[in-house]
């Protein structure tokens, strides 16, 4: 689960990480009022759940309240990588002597909370990893004990900070790692962490991603969920225990199991077709689950045909067949179906489909060929 900068900033502030004063505005007039209240130059920043704001014109410096108002007017309503801006953060501008990248991620390779820092502040870490991987300084932390002070200091000195700055860095880095653990975050990032001309360290951006599997035990964080992170069908899927990702093609896909669902997309592309979605209906799916999945798939108007690929292990073919038949008779629009059904209770499943006039394949590749032919015909 992604959250906005202003939400992440509040979490960082609560964790004791120094952040500039800032408030959210949804209108140019509000931005002007906030700027007037601060009485100093501000930065007006688009709040969107994606990167690349600067390049898209979503971040502007404003010297006075009138400029803050016009900056907010320019930014509100624009589209950044498919996200419409409806909020801006108005933050007190900081003078910058040095910019640092600082992030903490739950790292699958080292199986730690991995602190990552680089003197190339303001650059995306993926970019640094590609162009100058040696510039990234890493320190793995045990989630139970957190980052050790000596680890943080060593990173600080390698960044070229002086001793008073290293002491601030030590505190910030340990709080960032602690925040990751406390929030069940998969990532917490300060990019950039700046050093002011006076030698003060300050987090002037904030990014946090929460582990979807950990949200259940953080009701306060669950409330931060932003509806624009997912489409209506994606939300329906999540709430129904179905994994769904919308893609750009016209062949709707329903599969049991994530690996098999990914493989089906690959095989469709291999045969010249374009999948409309990834969908894992889940293990042990019953007829109701199948009908819900079908509705989610058909909510995408680009879908011209639905390809059902079920390998019944725990999932029973007769349950799936019943769901498919029920769905086809109840849905708002009807599209051609191609079904591939094998495994547990296969004969019964095939009979249910046949009685409803739906033919089924036993071979996945043949089903895919039929589906691709079905949409291009």
């Amino acid at each position, binding site marked *: 689960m992604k959250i906005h900068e202003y939400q992440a900033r509040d979490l960082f502030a609560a964790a004791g990480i120094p952040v500039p004063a800032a408030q959210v505005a949804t209108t140019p007039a509000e931005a002007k009022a906030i700027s007037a209240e601060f009485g100093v130059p501000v930065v007006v920043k688009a709040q969107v759940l994606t990167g690349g704001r600067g390049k898209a014109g979503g971040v502007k410096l404003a010297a006075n309240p009138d400029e803050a108002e016009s900056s907010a007017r320019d930014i509100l309503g624009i589209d950044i990588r498919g996200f419409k801006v409806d909020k801006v953060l108005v933050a007190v501008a900081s003078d910058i002597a040095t910019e640092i990248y600082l992030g903490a991620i739950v790292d*699958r390779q080292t199986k730690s909370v991995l602190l990552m820092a680089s003197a190339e502040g303001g650059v995306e870490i993926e970019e640094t990893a590609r162009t100058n991987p040696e510039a990234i300084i890493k320190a793995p932390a045990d989630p139970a004990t957190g980052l050790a002070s000596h680890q943080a200091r060593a990173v600080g000195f390698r960044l070229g900070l002086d001793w008073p700055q290293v002491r601030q860095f030590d505190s910030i880095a340990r709080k960032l790692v602690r925040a*990751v653990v406390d929030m*069940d975050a*998969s990532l917490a990032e300060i990019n950039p962490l700046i050093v002011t001309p006076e030698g003060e360290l300050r987090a002037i951006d904030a990014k946090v991603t929460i582990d979807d599997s950990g949200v259940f035990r953080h009701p306060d964080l669950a409330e931060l969920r932003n509806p624009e992170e997912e489409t209506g069908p994606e939300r329906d899927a999540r709430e129904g225990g179905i994994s769904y*990702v919308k893609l750009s093609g016209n062949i709707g896909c329903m599969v049991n199991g*994530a690996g098999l669902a*990914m493989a089906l997309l*690959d095989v469709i592309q291999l045969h010249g077709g374009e999948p409309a979605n990834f969908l894992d209906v889940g293990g042990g799916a019953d007829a109701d689950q199948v009908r819900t999945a079908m509705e989610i798939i058909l909510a995408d108007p680009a879908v011209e045909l639905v390809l059902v690929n079920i390998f019944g292990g725990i999932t029973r073919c007769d349950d799936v067949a019943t769901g498919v038949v029920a769905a086809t008779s109840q849905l708002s629009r009807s599209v051609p179906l191609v079904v591939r059904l094998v495994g547990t209770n296969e004969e019964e499943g095939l009979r249910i489909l046949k009685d409803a006039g739906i033919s089924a394949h036993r071979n996945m590749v043949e089903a895919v060929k039929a589906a691709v032919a079905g949409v291009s015909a």
Partner: protein
Amino acid sequence: MSILIDFGTRIMVQGITGRQGSFHTNLMLEYGAKVVSGVVPGRGGQVEHGVPVFHTVAEAVAETEPTCGIVFVPAFAAADAVAEQVDAGIDLIVCITEGIPVLDIIPIYSRARSAGVRLIGPNCPGLITPGDAVKVGIMPGQIHVPGPVGLVSRSGTLTYEVVQALTDEGLGQSTCVGIGGDPVIGTNFIDCVRMFEDDPATEGIVVIGEIGGSDEEECANFIDREVGKPVVAFVAGRAAPPEKRMGHAGAIVSGGSGTAQAKIDAFRAAGVSVAEFPADVARLMNEQLRG
């Protein structure tokens, strides 16, 4: 022969009275596996499918001497269940549960490792050795037949698809291991490939990977250096868009890394045959084993 489990395997089921735990205990018993005990706090003294239930793992260990434990406990309590098994001295722990917070798994991973315990999963279908009629997991037993192919996979149903194709091709399996679809898992590809390389009953090895992380690349490197047996791979997720989680918590192309193509390239560079679609694994393995 086989790896990890055989006819001597004695299984303890943690969460045996739950919907999943009860259902799969029955299927494991029907398949021929020896389920010797179950554990559910508060249900000690009950009997489930003829299997005695205990309040604690320690009691189950003392009374029934299991050699392996399987976890069907819900996500919020699963890490604690694994820890209880580690503390009670279980050597092989299979964690089926999906959706465990990653930060719960990291300490469990370290704890199992320092205790010398082999943890399989979480978020996995478990493992099966058809020649000894033993399964510690949720895979459909009837698609497996005994034979010379060792299989390791991050997936569930995709594995069944490949196993069915192998069986249809007349290629049985020594052991199939589902290592799980989470970002942090107890046992990785290299661990399993090494065991298959050392297992006299395994003649060929199938590796089924997917997008996310770099375990496939590291495995390819290992195969290049240390594996003499033929290996066939399939990698799912070529069509997956970046930055989107494809069902499994660990299946995500992030910041340009973890792509299917990079994994396929790594396998090919290591001399591994890579299948274009799941069932093609069987044809390629047949070519390798029978020329």
